[in-house]
């Protein structure tokens, strides 16, 4: 639809794609900003529920406007920095932290046909960008000229690079079956063969654990472990720059859950192949979007559940867990999956 609109405005292909890109990114930015706001609100409500508190309930009906109030507060806040920071890098870091996970949404198929670009190397593109977001954190820790920040940044680098390995190995097991790197085709494969989580439960668990670690969520939140490192890499950030890190963290969380849903839980597909609408109709798209959102919400809730019930790991235990537990298991898993797929496919 947007493609057609862009084509109607201009005949030049590159202007068409510029318009298309601008519209799509504005849409995604708007929608994801809304999602992040509701996600933060939800996180606060869920944590309150788990801790037998009430949570935000003063601003607006049932506290629904709390996030808007917080957002306005953060934007208007004075940007306090000390005079030894490396200014350019310091300002660049939050931009990277937001931009990287945000750009990765370009290939995520939200529903049939609701996808910005469907290219053949979608999965590699997504992983390249999530790997890039660690650069933002590293720069933030380095440019802050603060020992707590630096410690946080070093932890982040070690952690995010390590956990990418089991994540990708777990994924390879699935790729043996689906034989595609496009996220859309991964979903279409699951339409005919059933959800991947049924074939590859071990991969799913490893992938989800590693994804939680990738977005620095508890129990892997060593990067900003507030009881040790005050606030880790964003100790020196205030106001809108802090808000951008916060925003980036939640976008990364949504991205991780979206990927898990697309790769393992059938993306926009309803369970048991339940299909009340004609494929290709508007209603079918809405139906798919609904299922996608529901599955992502379920995973997000699980992540919140982790966060509010688990203690935090220590940095060496985190590394041991990755290198001595997750990677060997994912290797064996990959081997088994490869053998099975070879046997099935002859």
């Amino acid at each position: 639809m947007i493609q057609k609109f862009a084509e109607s405005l201009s005949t030049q292909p590159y202007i068409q794609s510029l318009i298309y890109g601008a519209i799509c990114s504005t849409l995604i930015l708007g929608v994801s900003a809304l999602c992040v706001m509701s996600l933060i609100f939800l996180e606060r409500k869920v944590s309150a529920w788990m801790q037998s508190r009430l949570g935000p309930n003063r601003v607006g009906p049932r506290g629904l406007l709390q996030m808007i109030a917080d957002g306005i507060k953060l934007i208007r806040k004075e940007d306090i920095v000390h005079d030894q920071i490396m200014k350019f890098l310091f300002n660049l870091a939050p931009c990277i932290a937001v931009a990287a996970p945000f750009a990765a949404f370009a290939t995520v198929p939200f529903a049939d046909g609701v996808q910005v670009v469907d290219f053949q190397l979608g999965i590699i593109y997504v992983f390249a960008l999530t790997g890039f977001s660690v650069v933002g954190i590293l720069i933030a820790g380095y440019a802050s000229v603060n020992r707590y920040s630096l410690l946080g940044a070093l932890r982040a680098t070690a952690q995010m690079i390590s956990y990418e390995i089991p994540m990708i190995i777990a994924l390879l097991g699935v790729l043996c079956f689906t034989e595609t790197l496009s996220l859309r085709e991964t979903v279409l494969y699951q339409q005919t063969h059933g959800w991947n989580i049924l074939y590859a439960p071990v991969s799913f668990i490893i992938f989800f654990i590693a994804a939680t670690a990738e977005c620095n969520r508890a129990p892997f939140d060593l990067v900003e472990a507030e009881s040790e490192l005050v606030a880790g890499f964003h100790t020196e950030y205030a106001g809108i720059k802090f808000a951008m890190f916060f925003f980036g963290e939640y976008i990364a969380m949504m991205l991780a859950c979206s990927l898990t849903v697309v790769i393992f839980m059938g993306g926009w597909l309803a369970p048991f192949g339940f299909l009340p609408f004609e494929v290709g109709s508007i209603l079918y798209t809405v139906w798919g979007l609904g299922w996608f959102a529901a599955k992502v919400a379920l995973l997000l809730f699980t992540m919140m559940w982790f966060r509010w019930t688990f203690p935090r790991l220590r940095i060496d235990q985190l590394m041991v867990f990755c290198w001595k537990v997750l990677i060997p298991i994912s290797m064996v898993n990959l081997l088994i999956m490869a053998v099975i797929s070879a046997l099935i496919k002859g």
Partner: protein
Amino acid sequence: MNFEEKLASQLKPEEYLINIGPQHPSTHGVLRLLVTLEGEIIKNVEPDIGYLHRCFEKICENRTYPMGIPMTDRMDYLGAMLNNLGYALAAEKLGEIEVPVRSQWIRIIVCELNRIASHLLWLAAFGADTGALTMFMFGLRERELVLDILEQASGSRLTYGYIRIGGVARDVDKTFIKKTNEFIKLFPAKLKEYETLLGGNPIFHERTKNVGTMSRETALSFGVTGPMLRSTGLAQDLRKNCSYLPYDQLDFEVASNNHPDCYGRYLVRMKEMGESLKIVEQALEKLQDGEIMPKMKPIFKPKKGEAYVKIEAPRGQFGVYMESDGKNKPHRVKFRAPSFSNLSVINTIAKGGLVADLIVILGSIDIVLGDVDR
């Protein structure tokens, strides 16, 4: 050359100095730790104390005996009842005052409830130190109930000033007993809940087992007391064979075990909460009508002499030394604070660990800076 510069001048090229506190989320008050690190490995920890020093010992010399009680409230503000008790006992020893039986039982009840409240706050903060934030809320939730009970008796929630020289400030009423009984029924289930939420979690075991290990010799040489000492296997508790309150008529165990690490300290405190609850339950049954204050002269003027009293506070042995020169004000008062001695061991047990360990160890020591600095 000040303390920090001196430490900084001794650094090796691969080491650096990091300042934890006095404003830090998990120093449990205004404690400053100068930590020498190599990467994340701790080479040296120097606690810098005194930010909360309020000269209580000197102030006590300039106030009459009963006026010293509010000072003790503000030392270990999480176990204020027991500080009151120590002070009152010392003054009673000097003045040779006999405490009425009813008051003695009330003292046991409020002190053990206060011990539960103190350990609950410790558990909450320890959960937060290890990263389990929900434990923080759960611990405080039940502490609130204890504080309600203590408020019912004393009128305040933190600085009670309830135990006075000779007895207690006012008698407990029916509501107090009803609330206490309700709490006794409720609390064992909550203890199990904590065990499922925090104590049974494998990550928690990883974080606390073999962290901050301390031998019994180290503990004794540093004057470490309380749950920290009991976790080294020495069942040393002043409430057993004690002379200051009728604990010998009650049936309870001293919590001790042979895990001289952070996990052992967790176990000791968890068990102690259960035992304290048992004590409260039994003491409530023994509570009979009677006087709460003996007949005393309006102005308390003990004879010349000195007295030393030690009691088992939530954090260890709390000692009060009091010297009288026959006037209505003490000539000298000295408090032996358990947190102070317990904190001194931190450099020995935290060396070689990681930064994250330091926070857990600090949490497991259970310091109250009001108690350390006085």
